[in-house]
């Protein structure tokens, strides 16, 4: 399952993820990360069974964590079902349904944001909450 982790600037110099991996003994996969002196913003993929353990470890080190349930929002009023989002997406979130309208596989999204500007009709938004 995918989780969004946010670090405030004061813990940027600490190996938060590495310590969490060592202590939880869980395979954490970093899908996307932006880190600078102001803080860090990460999308990680973790085994579902370790969710509580990992979240507690991350929180105890000053990170805030939220589940990525609907990482991307498709505005159906604006979407014309062209498919411009399909080939731009590195994780194959978008696809055609039988009737050639667009389906969204939310599970796959890593919030890279490439599709946002590639949509000619401004129908896509990244969901950010933390």
């Amino acid at each position: 399952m995918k989780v969004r982790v946010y670090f405030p600037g004061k813990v940027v110099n600490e190996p938060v993820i590495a310590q969490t991996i060592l202590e939880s003994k869980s395979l954490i996969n970093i899908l996307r990360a932006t880190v600078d002196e102001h803080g860090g913003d990460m999308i990680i993929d973790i085994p579902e069974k370790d969710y509580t353990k990992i979240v507690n470890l991350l929180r105890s080190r000053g990170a805030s964590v939220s589940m990525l349930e609907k990482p991307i929002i498709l505005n159906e009023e604006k979407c014309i079902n062209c498919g411009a989002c399909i080939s731009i997406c590195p994780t194959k979130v978008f696809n055609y349904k039988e009737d050639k309208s667009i389906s969204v596989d939310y599970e796959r999204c890593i919030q890279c944001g490439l599709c946002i500007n590639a949509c000619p009709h401004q129908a896509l938004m990244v969901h950010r909450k933390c």
Partner: protein
Amino acid sequence: MPKTLEEINRKIKEGNAVVVDAEEMSLIVEEKGLAKAAKEVDVVTTGTFGAMCSSGVFLNFGHSEEPIKMQRVWLNDVEAYTGIAAVDAYLGATQLSETKGFDYGGAHVIEDLLLGKEIELRAVSYGTDCYPKKSLKTKITLEYLNQAIMVNPRNAYQRYNVATNSSDKTLYTYMGTLLPNFGNATFSGAGALSPLCNDPDYETIGIGTKIFLGGGKGYVIGEGTQHNPKAGFGTLMVKGNLKEMSAEYLKPAIFHKYGVTLYVGIGVPIPVLNESIARKTAIKDADIVTNVLDYSVPKRDRPILRKVTYEELKSGLIEIQGKEVPTSSLSSYFIAKKIALELKNWLEKGNFLISAPLEKLPYDVVFKPMKEEIMRVKDVMLAPVITIKGGSSIREAANLIIEKNIDHLPVVSKENKILGILTSWDISKAVLGKYRFVDEIMTEKVITAELEESVESAAKKLQEHNISALPVVDKEQKVVGMITTSALSKLLIK
């Protein structure tokens, strides 16, 4: 047994015409055979919904109390062309707002008009005896306009090129965002549902053909600009009354870092007069071939990387130079199909008759490149050029550079084909190392110029790669000249 248009229209009026969309038609022909399909089906409907930049609306605002001869006019800060009569203007879909830039343009004004929103109208003028007013600012809505006539100079391309990008940079184009290293490929057009693909010889579509345009009825008023029938790239010029249209079938779009455009919905009914027309309307995506072009080449004639069918494009993956490349459609097949079905509905209800074209669309025209005088690389390059053969010693190279007083020395094969390039800096570097042959120290990835390339394009390459010379090669990669920054600067002073 051929049918006449009168017979078909009579059936439409009586409410018993057999109408199918182009997708269904190919299945019917496959299932029942050509003869039976031609006999049973009266009309085939087509549809397309994609970005059609060459679109816009003629507006007549009526006269202000103190009359004005509008010299320049803006609608929500988007300028419309008013080099016509006093209160007439043409609002182009791609014109950008002077205050909002890429975020709002002519296409958005068209949408706001359709949605019944108020639009700010501003105009300025020099003032005349008959039109004394010099400036004007008011609010208008579609309802208050005398006319809002959509006239689109080029719509409904028969098919369109596929865009991809071989360079290492992301490109932002009218074909959408193109990821580096063939990261994706984009295409446009509804394929087998596209109007002109179903009547490629323009037997039924011509001047005066009544069509579905933006949710209302419209007409084909001639061939579109850049109409190129022999290459299979025919286009249509269309008109219709904006007041009868719907925002559902006219949608503004923003192509990131490119600009604004309008998605236009067009549907054309094709009367099945005979078996030949039935055969053409049974076209499938697999029968429609187009070209995959490399948009990273900033030239008019971009290289064709391969041919591809719409069936392959719609599969979501095509192969380009050994790489699996994901494809995306920029036009909406979903809405194209909806248009074909809506048009079918109109015909079945008997309130839309098919008009015979008054005149055929031209088939004997070509789409010519722009006439311009450009300076080409072959006109300004230095030639003959001093080169050195691969396998020569560094000492020989050093001698040549000093003797001939040059800075760049292309390394070539026996056949004079480019292998690499040496600069005096490379030679100095070699002195510090234990190198013996030119091949060991030359730069192998040489940026070259072509004979027919424009000097401007060569100059851009020099600047982009921060280099001072480009070997000029012919089609066989043989070195035939040299372009240098010092030679180019001399050109300017001359």
